[in-house]
């Protein structure tokens, strides 16, 4: 009897270059397939019969295993197995366009800063990881915008109308412009008190009177090290360390109830890269916080022993981000996990998808945020899925990692950058068993390997 094997409605075969993976949404797990297993599943999903597979063969054993795990089944005839969808597949524009779900605007309010970091304003000369969470600044070519108080008010009104949830004020150092910062926070409190405002600062400037800062404000202090020596090396200003640590102490004291109004981000540079754990421990011990990480490398990537890697990436390791539920899988499949919901407003008044992406889609204050967001460009970036990223589109793990989009985009433009955050060539690595120990967590990923010599490789 001719028999067919098909994956279940909520099990998705995601192809890699030669390998593949089954995303089992019923159980929130991922079954990595070696090239032989992937080839077998591909032909099954094309409704090709399995009657040529001998009982007891490695192929039949693999399919039986999948049946036992509930991710597929044998069928007596070719069928169309509709895949799970949460939404109608059409996204309308025009008169039926759904409102966008705006999340955050990052807004560079100054380029002033008391530090002179070697890693700042290195447009085109650095490779970065999550630079938007740090205080790194790009040297923008245009003139700076000159907004009035009314322009700021209009911006806050637009943020409220468009239902943005968060505003990230960045610099330079926003604390280096205490009057401007105070004015902005006052206007925000008056016009959109529900907006959560993050002030990203190297922490060296003048801290406002915390008693007068509205509850909607959070401070994200970026650390360049843990000593005067570090600051001397990184920014030519060892004396800054005492001011930074004093400011963070004050912020911590003001946030003694642990309301989350203080965040710390460690910027890993030449000075600190090797001491990542030490920096993390310092922040934990002193302020009881687990810092976030950002990182920068000088570019071109020369003078390194072996290929440089961002610090969260091991030689053959890449952090996997398990999808916590079915929604998250679909979100990753249809959207850009990093850029979705966001936009950036630079010191030059340019609206961009992100401070580190070049494309400008509007000019403030001549054009409002609302007007800029009526254009298609930002949404193009929101929907820039892994299928658009060279290297990722052929990786079976593409919905199981959530990388920084800037690194991804740079990775397809700048030679050598891709390997910095994604050292895997999954097809090759999986075939020779090099990635098995590092993909974890084990309960999320399981490896399915077709026995050698099965005759269905490639």
């Amino acid at each position: 009897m001719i028999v067919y094997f098909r994956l279940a409605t909520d099990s998705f075969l995601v192809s890699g270059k030669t390998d593949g993976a089954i995303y089992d949404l019923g159980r929130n797990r991922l079954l990595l397939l070696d090239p032989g297993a992937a080839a077998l599943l591909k032909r099954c999903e094309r409704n090709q019969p399995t009657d040529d597979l001998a009982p007891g063969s490695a192929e039949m054993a693999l399919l039986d295993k999948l049946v036992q795990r509930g991710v597929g089944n044998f069928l007596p005839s070719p069928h169309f197995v509709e895949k799970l969808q949460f939404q109608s597949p059409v996204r309308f524009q025009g008169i039926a366009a759904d409102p966008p779900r705006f999340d955050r605007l990052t807004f560079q309010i100054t380029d002033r800063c008391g530090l002179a970091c070697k890693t700042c304003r290195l447009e085109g000369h650095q490779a970065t990881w999550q630079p938007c969470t740090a205080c790194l600044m790009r040297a923008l070519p245009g003139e700076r915008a000159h907004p009035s108080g009314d322009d700021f008010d209009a911006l806050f009104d637009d943020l409220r109308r468009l239902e943005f949830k968060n505003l990230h004020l960045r610099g330079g150092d926003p604390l280096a412009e205490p009057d401007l910062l105070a004015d902005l926070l006052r206007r925000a409190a008056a016009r959109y008190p529900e907006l959560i405002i993050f002030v990203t600062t190297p922490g060296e400037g003048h801290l406002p009177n915390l008693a007068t800062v509205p509850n909607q404000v959070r401070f994200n202090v970026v650390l360049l090290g843990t000593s005067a020596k570090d600051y001397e090396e990184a920014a030519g200003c060892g004396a800054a360390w005492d001011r930074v640590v004093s400011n963070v102490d004050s912020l911590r004291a003001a946030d003694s109830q642990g309301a989350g109004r203080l965040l710390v981000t460690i910027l890993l540079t030449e000075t600190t890269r090797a001491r990542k754990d030490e920096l993390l421990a310092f922040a934990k011990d002193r302020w009881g916080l687990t810092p976030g990480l950002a990182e920068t490398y000088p570019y071109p990537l020369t003078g390194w022993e072996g290929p440089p890697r961002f610090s969260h990436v091991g030689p053959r390791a890449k952090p996997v981000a398990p999808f916590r539920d079915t929604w998250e899988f679909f979100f990753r499949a249809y959207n850009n996990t990093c850029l979705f919901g966001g936009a950036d407003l630079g010191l030059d008044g340019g609206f961009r998808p992100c401070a580190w992406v070049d494309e400008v889609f509007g000019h403030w204050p001549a054009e409002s945020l609302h007007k800029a967001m009526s254009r298609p460009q930002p949404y193009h970036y929101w929907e820039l899925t892994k299928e658009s990223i060279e290297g990722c589109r052929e990786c079976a793990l593409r919905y199981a990692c959530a990388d920084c989009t800037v690194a991804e985009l740079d990775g397809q433009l700048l030679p050598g950058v891709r390997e910095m955050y994604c050292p895997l060539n999954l097809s090759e690595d999986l075939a020779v068993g090099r990635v098995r120990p590092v993909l974890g967590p084990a309960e999320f990923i399981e490896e399915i390997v077709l026995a050698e010599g099965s005759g269905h490789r490639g």
Partner: protein
Amino acid sequence: MKLLEHRVTLKFSVDSGNQYLYDDATGMTFVWSDLRERVLSALLDGSLGERRATWNNYAPADIDHEVLFISRWRQKYGAFVRKVGPYPPVPPPAELEAWIRKEILMQLILVVTEDCNLRCRYCAFSDHYPLNRDRTTKSMTFDIARRAVDYFFELARPEIERNPRRLFGVTFYGGEPLLEVDLIARVIDYARERFPGLVIPVMTVNGTLLSPEVAKTLADRDVHVSISLDGPTAEHDRNRVFPSGQGSYEPVMRNLRRIREEMPDFFANYVTSVSTYDCRTDVEAVSEFFFSSPDPTPPVLFVSKVATRNTDYYDAFGPEDLEKHIAQVRWLRQDYKQRVIEGDRYSTYAQSYVGLPIATCLLRGRMANPRPPFLPFTGACIPGTKLCVTAEGQLDVCERVNGSFPIGHLDSGGVDFGRVKQVIENYRDSICDKCHACPVTRLCSMCYSTTEQEGVFAKTPEDCAETVAITRGSLADYYSIKEGNPSADFSYETDRTYLERRLMFL
């Protein structure tokens, strides 16, 4: 409060004989089998332990597999069963207003005239439809149109503020709207000046007045125009006639030929067709006409049946007409299916007539496309999604209702949201009392216009049975095509503009 549970699934078989199950709770469809059916039934009535002992024809491992499958879909996705209690109340008027203004308002319809230069035999404003308004010589003044535009965009302000990509259709309706072409041009210019970048003008016309000069007026304003075109001469002229009885095909074609020649971009990008049929329509001939006629045949957006409710129009037809028609439609469906499977071209008439109901199965709402909880069933919109303004300034739910359920008037402050609440409650009480147990609510197109009688909404069990039967047929066709060619292209997935254009004329 104990919720009632209803199994809401629909089994169907496709051309190959394979069985599938459509599940209205999730909007999903599953490969189905006798064993799956037995397991689901047993799990639902709690008799699995007892009944599986009698299933000697099945391997225990297969039964276990199906139990796991059904259980997972029930527990994780809430499949197969709808749990219902009483409807949540319709929100109070102020809340309803805020919600409509922010969420759903999308189209202004201006009935610019109730007059027409044709006397189409199936016209909704003819004597065949005693409950509808009559054709009159009334037309809208610019003042009423201007006030309607201002009121609509003020109403839409929260939506405009929140959704910077949203555009709004402004539809000119009649009668024959081109009898008021000067008014239309003036209204568009006014709306564009007051609300730049927000307006998409749309109209359906009979084509007889669409001279190149008039077309230029419309083209200059980016108006999307749909021509009522029922097929080749014999078909079109059977119903679409002047008061003298003379057919209108040739005047329409004369205009379209000139527009195609003199304004090719406008013709290609802004002109479409809508087509109407009855039991005597030769659908094969009409489909062929739209596929290969040398005459200009703009792509068909809609194929509509002459309205069947509250009319004596169909008294003129006999059973033989119906039988012939059914046979022709069956042929058209098979031909369309085959062409889609094989990747061949097909006529836009076939695409609209038989393809759209099939593709509706693909486009149906899923779990994350919920309807408002207070009106969760049928295809009825929340009144206010559209705002239809009559020539005298009365506000109706849409252009297709007969005026029995006005929801306000421009002279009395616009939409009466208390009245909207009443209309929803009336409709819900009259139409939706058994919908919770229906297996095809996500594919039901019943609405105010298809259920209205004089002052009430009403339906019969046969109406629902017909909806279920049509849905079963469409699902079967869709899966037959997908079995034949899993990557079959219905155009709608790849050409979103077709659907969006269609939506503007909906």
